[in-house]
Each structure stands twice: as C-alpha cells, then as structure tokens.
C-alpha cells in the first residue's frame, strides 16, 4: 500500500509547490491592484475602488477588482490570427509563464519550520521547494534566460511589425543586462561560498552584515540590472506603448495576453525576492530574528513576516519608480548596460575577491573588528570612486544630440563619400 503513496518528501514538495503557485498567482493579481492604487495616488486621482461583493453595495475598497478582471479575461475570445506562425505563437506564452513560475523551485520564501517530527521528513523543514538543489542561483539565472525565448518567440511568431520590433528590442535588452546581473550575483556567491539561496541568507544572518553593506557596488549593479530584466520603467522599452503599441504581445489577446502580463509581474516578484535574499539580508533583522536553525514557531513566523515585508517594500519601490522616471532611449539603455554597468560589475567582482582573499591575513594582523570594518570600508571607497568615474566617463547620458562620428559598422559610408567626391569633381569641371 505504502508503495503507491508518494514519499513524505514528495508530498512536502507538492504542498510547497501548491502554496507557491497559488500564492504567486494571487499575489500577481493583487499587485496589479496595488499598482493601480499607487498610480492613482501619484497622479492625484481615484483608483479602482468600486468592485466588491457582487449584487451588494459593499465595495471593500475595490478588492474584488482582480477577481472580476480575471473572470472577464477568461471569458474573452481565445483568438489566433491567421497570419501568425501557429506553433510558436501558441508556445510563447506557455514557455514564459511556465519558466517564470518554475524559477521559484530554487527560491526560499522563509527560513525553516520548527522540528515537526514526521517520519521520513528531515528536520527542520525549510521554506524551499527543492532544498537539495546545489545550483540554486544557476537555476534562477537559467530560467530567467528562458523568459527571453518567450518574448522573442512571441515577437517573431506574431508576424507583426510592432511585435517584431518589440521582440528584437526586448531580447537585446534582456541579453545585455544579463551580464551585469551575473556579475552582481558572482560577488555574493563568492562571499557566501555557496550557490544555494538559503545558504546565502544564513551567511548574512550569521555575520549580521547584509551584502548591500559589504558590496554596495554589486548591489547597485544588480538592482539596476534586475529593473531591466523585469522590463519595468525606466527600462520598459520592450513594450513602450507610445512607440510600439504593446511590443511583443501586440497580437495577443484574451488568456494568452493574461499569461504574458502575469509572467511580467512574476518577473518583478522574482527580482524583488532576489534583491532581498541576496543583498538585503533575507529574513534576518538585527535583534529580532536571531540566526540559528533551531527556532520556535514564533520565530519562524517572524522570519517569514520580515522576508515578506522586505519583498513588499522592494515591490512598492519598483512601482514608485515606474511613476517617477521617464523611459530611456535605446542607445542610452545600451550605453548604460555595456559602458557603465559591465565595468562597474567587474570592479565589484575584483574588489570582493580581493577583500575575501586577504581577510584572514588582515584579521591576523589587525584583529577581527578592525578587519571587519576594513572589509566594509574598502568596497564603499570603490563604490564612490566607481560612481564618480562612471559619471565623468559617460557624459553623453543626458545628451540628446545625434553623434555624427564615423561609424565603424557603416560599410556604405565609403561608397557615399566616393559618390560625393565624384559629384563635386563633376561640378568643378
């Protein structure tokens, strides 16, 4: 009989997956409402505040809005235009939603539970679907790259000029910002000595120094790159409404459009999770949570609450930025990725590597306290120097004038100049 039942481990994984998928879909729906509320607040108008319990006058501040929207969009026509590439067109939203959900297999959403003493389950039970996965960060990185495929497939298969341009832009942007993202990750991985995200949180809790303090430059680079990866303003060029209508999902409607929009919000949630887990200490807060793995129910709840509060704060910051800053131009975007973020990321990596390499020697020579402060001071010096240098070396950031310099990729230039010289010669004759 017991052979037919899944093992306790599998059951535990299934329960966690169910909680995560349900929670994430609900969170995505209600974050849309939150975003509309924040937009209304920023623009000094009323947001969605009518939809509550149907057939009554109770409006509940508009909390019924996401449910009504979801129901409406499911009842819409599931339409596939004639001119599209059918297989790729249908696969794109599935790929992008499945990938952005499955990322959470490696992302912890809390610390650990107190010992439950269930036979077959290891104690304590971690808040993580796949605790045995040694390559957590790489899994997250890999699946966030698969999201690029969804966007590119959608844009290409739509056979629509807006969709095509949106897909091109989007893939170039996501691909360009993946390198600073990886560089930011590398610094944290180096300092924590592990690719597991829960181990990274534990390392910060044990030392009490969050990585945003120890690696400010890495934090900056990662933060900006994750804005770009989530395609939020000021990096929302893939679907710049004023230029590209809807970008890669112009031709999509109904439920498939919903899948794209949900996965966009999931990307933002993922970005917030990663920022909090890797740089803002995860569930750790000084004097409240403690740092051991043997905890009580109260502590487990506290850690979960603190992690959620931090993530919500980062998401609200994402939304406030959306209504505060204008969009970049594409060349500014590429300049920032390749000429600013990549060098800064490399500088951060080298600094962190050097600090971690020579920390034992300095601890021996100066004592643990002084060495600890030095390990924080040096990256901050590099942070300010790097920031100032980046500001000096890329003065074109706010310059709107087109550059008329010689473009090495412009192969037709020589021909044009030749023609010009010919006509001038003909004129003098």
């Amino acid at each position, binding site marked *: 009989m017991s052979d037919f039942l899944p093992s306790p481990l599998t059951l535990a994984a299934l329960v966690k*997956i169910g909680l995560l998928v349900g929670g994430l879909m609900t969170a995505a729906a209600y974050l849309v409402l939150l975003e509309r509320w924040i937009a209304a607040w920023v623009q000094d108008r009323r947001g969605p505040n009518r939809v509550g319990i149907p057939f009554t006058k109770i409006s509940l501040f508009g909390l019924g809005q996401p449910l009504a929207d979801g129901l409406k969009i*499911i009842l819409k026509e599931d*339409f596939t235009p004639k001119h599209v590439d059918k297989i790729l067109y249908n696969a794109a939203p599935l790929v992008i939603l*499945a990938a952005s*959900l499955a990322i*959470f297999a490696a992302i912890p959403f809390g610390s650990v539970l107190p010992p439950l003493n269930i036979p077959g389950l290891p104690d304590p039970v971690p808040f993580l679907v796949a605790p*045995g996965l040694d390559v957590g960060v790489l899994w997250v990185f890999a699946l966030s790259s698969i999201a690029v495929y969804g966007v590119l497939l959608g844009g290409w298969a739509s056979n629509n000029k807006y969709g095509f341009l949106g897909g091109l832009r989007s893939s170039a942007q996501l691909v360009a910002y993946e*390198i600073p993202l*990886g560089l930011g990750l590398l610094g944290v*991985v180096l300092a924590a000595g592990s690719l597991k995200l829960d181990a990274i949180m534990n390392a910060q809790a044990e030392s009490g120094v969050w990585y945003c303090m120890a690696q400010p430059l890495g934090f900056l680079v990662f933060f900006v790159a994750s804005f770009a990866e989530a395609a939020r303003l000021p990096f929302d060029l893939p679907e710049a409404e004023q230029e590209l209508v809807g970008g890669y999902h112009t031709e999509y409607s109904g439920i498939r459009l919903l899948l794209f929009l949900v996965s966009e919000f999931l990307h933002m949630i993922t970005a917030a999770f990663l920022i909090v887990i890797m740089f803002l200490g995860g569930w750790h807060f000084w004097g409240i949570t403690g740092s051991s793995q043997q905890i009580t129910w109260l502590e487990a709840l506290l850690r979960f609450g603190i992690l959620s509060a931090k993530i919500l704060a980062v998401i609200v910051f994402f939304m406030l930025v959306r209504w505060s800053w204008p969009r970049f131009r594409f060349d500014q975007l590429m300049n920032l990725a390749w000429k600013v973020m990549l060098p800064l990321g490399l500088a951060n990596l080298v600094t962190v590597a050097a600090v971690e390499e020579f920390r034992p020697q300095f601890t021996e020579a100066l004592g643990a306290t002084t060495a600890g402060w030095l390990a924080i001071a040096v990256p901050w010096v590099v942070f300010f120097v790097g920031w100032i240098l980046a500001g000096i070396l890329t003065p074109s950031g706010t310059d709107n004038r087109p550059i008329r310099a010689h473009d090495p990729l412009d192969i037709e230039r020589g021909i044009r100049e030749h023609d010009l010289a010919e006509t001038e010669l003909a004129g003098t004759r």
Partner: protein
Amino acid sequence: MAASRREVLSLRLFFVTDFVTNFTKSVSAADFHWKRSMEAILPVLLFVAIAAAVSVGLVFAAGLIGPNRASAVKEMPYESGMDPVHDTRRRFDVRFHLVAITFLVFDVELLFLYPWAVASRSPAGIDAAVSEGLVSCRGLVFAGALLFISLVVVGFAYDWRKGVFRWR
C-alpha cells in the same frame, strides 16, 4: 623462481574477488549518489510539470469557455488601424546580432568564473584543496582568476574601441 600453479591461481582469484567487490562498491555508491540527486531534482521536475500544467490548463479552459467568432478584419495584422504595408520578415539592424554575439562571449566567460567564486570561500573549496596538496597555495588560484578577469577586460576594451557598443 617461477610461481607455482597454485599460487598463480590464488592470486588470480584474489584479483577477481577484489575487482568484483570494488566494482559492486562503486556501483552501489553511484546508485546511492543517483538516489540522492534524484531526491534533490524530483521537486524541481514536479514544479516544472505543475507550472506547465497550470499554463496549458489556463489556455485550454479559456478556449473552452470563450466565444469564437472570426472575421476578416480581426485576422489582419494590427498596424494602428491602417492596412498593413510590406511584409514583416525584412532586414533589421545588424547591431542586434552584434549584441547577441558579445553577450555570448561575456556570458560564457562569466560562467567560467562561477566554479572559482563558489570554491573560493567554501570550506570544501580551495582551502581543502590546498591542505590536501592538490594546489600549492591560495595565491596561485587568486592570481589565475585575476589573469582570467584581466583577459576579459582586454576583450572588453577591444570591443569598446571597435565601436561594438556604439548605438548612435
């Protein structure tokens, strides 16, 4: 002195038994390892399967529920209300291709740095290798990593000078 027939036989037997025990040991170790990694990967596979099922299920359900009324205008590509001009599959800026190539180069170089980053400070990493005598000293590994990063920087500077990152 030549070994007697009996001694040779016993030696041969020894080798055979030794080989068999070692082979079974290694197979069982591999089996154990396989079981452990399956235990680690199973939740991930489950998650991928469930995520795929959720997205397919949503699309399928909406296809069943929603209306289906096609019309000639609906099936045209959307171009802000105009009749579409030209085909979509045309030439596009070569710089997108350049970005893809540059990304490939730098991303693979970053992937090479991951093993070093993980091993640098983990207890089973470089320190363990040094104490076991596999590496002569930590400094050598650090210097190697720095050399690799400086090669990346050289490539980066070359790309910059060549104008790969110039977009206007």
